[in-house]
């Protein structure tokens, strides 16, 4: 069995002062709330601000997802909501697209138009809690437009809504493929970023190292990737959109995956805060303290949730949650014990949310900020992961940054080699996973867990509804707004499409229509799958 971190650092049996020689408290740690923020952003930790405890929702119709959200609120989830999109919406097609019909509402929320968002949010406040909408990169602009449009409809200033609804375009390379081309995703992502920053809307974008790590990348690589992604995004908002760093720093937040290697994970989160703060100050010359503070949301690792003996996953989830909390996160949501089987059942969701409540209120872990600071082992581990992270970060910067490294295939090769290594380690029992390659029990002895059923006939229903509803819309308003979007789409990469998208969304244009129109304007096919034609003539 390997006794080393996932990035290959061999652990010693004991740690002492010799492992932290040169340690300088004020330079390396400083008090909580002080640069470089290794110990967190608040002097009193969670006493100052509790992490947002949340579960991800989204399955079936918008009305069904709305009930789940209300149910979570009753379970004590009041800090914020988190909704994940279905694949149809993520691929920017409508439920009544031939491929949409098979999968609408499966694995997420079928949010293809403002109508769906209105139904999702029925009776749920837009303000006073964080609103998080997950999905893929390309429809980020749609999700943002829904929030702006619904806020305006409810008579709320959009700048009063906070949360996140945008995703960086990089995840397409991290095992979460969608069909939109990278350059389009990047352009729209920067449009959304520029729009929220200029209009002071407190909506953030997730820069997801989670997918990278869930697809097999190691902790040190994840740190390097994370910083490189943020640097690329902020750099482009500064250079191409004329914003300053202190403003752009309000755009990204980091979604980190936390696995079962307890101490490694805490070290990773601490190192991330410190590395980001240094990058902000030294590379971007940040002026404000806030600009040196990266918000870190945690998703406990789905890939560690085993298919075999799923109840064991409750224990894994608890260890991971505790690591995330001790590491000092801004928000946390959990993978569920049935992650390797299906979408979360009500029972599994409640278990995960209760895991957070138990850690928050029973364990005492939230009482004292950064409790492991000063531990020889923890400080050595934080330094190690940082050192290896910097090595990779410098390599990526040497190539010209994140996008240049992707163009070269450097990041993809690194990820696929690491994924293969992880698989091999389990295959060869170099890493033990209870119930999978160690202490395996016969399948028939396994405890049966409730399974969340996914019904394909729901998809047909959603599709039929969409098809009929589309005909009831104000066609004149639709055509005018889409024609404007098409015209704007031809004005080049730096021309911000958000205003035109918001107008089209208010006229109830669907994601297929909005994205199809933008695609046409850029010389692509209307339909990413090239199966349907644009219903409107623009020229």
């Amino acid at each position, binding site marked *: 069995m390997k006794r080393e971190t996932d990035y290959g650092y061999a652990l010693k049996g004991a740690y002492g002062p010799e492992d932290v020689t040169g340690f300088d408290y004020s330079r390396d740690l400083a008090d909580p709330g002080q640069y470089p923020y290794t110990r967190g952003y608040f002097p009193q930790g969670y006493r100052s601000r509790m992490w947002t405890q949340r579960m991800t929702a989204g399955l079936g119709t918008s009305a069904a997802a709305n009930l789940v959200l209300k149910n979570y609120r009753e379970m004590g989830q009041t800090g914020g909501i988190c909704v994940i999109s279905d694949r149809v919406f993520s*691929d920017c097609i409508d439920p009544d697209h031939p*491929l949409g019909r*098979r*999968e609408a509402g*499966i694995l997420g929320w079928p949010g293809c138009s403002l109508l769906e968002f209105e139904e999702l949010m029925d009776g749920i406040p837009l303000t006073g809690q964080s609103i998080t909408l997950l999905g893929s990169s390309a429809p980020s602009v749609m999700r943002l437009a829904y929030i702006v449009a619904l806020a305006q409809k409810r008579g709320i200033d959009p700048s009063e809504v906070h949360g996140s609804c945008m995703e960086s375009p990089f995840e397409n390379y991290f095992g979460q493929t969608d069909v939109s081309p990278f350059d389009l995703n990047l352009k729209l992502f920067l449009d959304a970023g520029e729009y929220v920053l200029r209009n002071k809307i407190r909506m953030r974008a997730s820069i997801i190292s989670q997918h990278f790590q869930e697809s*097999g990348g190691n902790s040190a690589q994840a740190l390097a990737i994370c910083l490189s992604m943020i640097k690329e995004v902020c750099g482009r908002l500064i250079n191409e959109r004329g914003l300053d760093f202190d403003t752009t720093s309000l755009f990204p937040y980091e979604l980190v995956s936390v696995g079962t290697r307890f101490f490694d994970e805490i070290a990773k989160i601490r190192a991330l805060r410190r590395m980001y703060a240094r990058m902000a100050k030294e590379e971007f010359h940040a002026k404000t303290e806030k600009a040196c503070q990266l918000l870190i949301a945690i998703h406990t690792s789905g890939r560690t949730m085993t298919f075999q003996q799923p109840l064991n996953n409750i224990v894994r989830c608890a260890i991971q949650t505790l690591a995330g909390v001790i590491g000092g996160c801004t928000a946390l949501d959990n993978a569920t014990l049935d992650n*390797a089987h299906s979408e979360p059942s009500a029972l599994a969701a409640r278990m995960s949310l209760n895991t957070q409540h138990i850690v928050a209120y029973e364990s005492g872990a939230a009482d004292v900020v950064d409790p492991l600071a000063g531990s020889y082992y923890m400080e050595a581990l934080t330094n190690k992961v940082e050192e290896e992270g910097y090595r990779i970060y410098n390599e990526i910067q040497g190539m010209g940054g994140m996008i240049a490294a992707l163009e070269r295939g450097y990041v993809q090769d690194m990820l696929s080699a690491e994924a293969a290594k992880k698989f091999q380690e389990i295959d060869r029992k170099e890493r033990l996973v209870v119930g999978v390659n160690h202490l395996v029990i016969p399948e028939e002895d396994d405890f049966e867990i409730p*399974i969340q059923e996914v019904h394909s006939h729901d998809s047909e229903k959603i599709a039929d509804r969409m098809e009929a509803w589309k005909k009831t819309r104000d066609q004149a308003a639709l055509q005018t707004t889409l024609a404007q979007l098409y015209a704007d789409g031809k004005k080049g990469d730096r021309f911000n499409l958000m205003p035109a998208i918001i107008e089209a969304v208010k006229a109830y244009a669907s994601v297929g229509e909005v994205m199809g129109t933008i695609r046409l304007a850029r010389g692509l096919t209307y339909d990413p799958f090239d199966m349907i034609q644009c219903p409107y003539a623009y020229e």
Partner: protein
Amino acid sequence: MHKGKGIKVIISMIGLDGHTTGGEIVARVLRDAGFEVIYLGATQTPEMILKAAIQEDVDAIGISSHASNFHQIEYLVELLKDNGMGDVPVICGGNIPKHVASRLKGNGIAEVFPPGSSSAQIIDYVTANARGAARKSA
């Protein structure tokens, strides 16, 4: 490891499934065991997979599924049968609930590998059950 010599396998996601990690690892495992892998990637409809299977004349089809609309896998099996490709086994892997796995096996899917399956299990199964396995071991 040359167990897979001369055996041609499709590895694909089905439907709009964009989770490519599992499929890529299996493709790599099979390649390293000497198989020829036709990697179709994400967002493949059953019709597309059928067409690829015919044109490439493959010996087995592996579907990596991260909780899909599983009816699409059953539909693929039907399509293969209707097109004279019923002798090409369809093998699934990924996040598939147990009762769905039993249903799939009852509906013509050759085998379902849950997460955590070893590479040896996968390689041995495909080697023994690919179309023309007898010819290849001869």
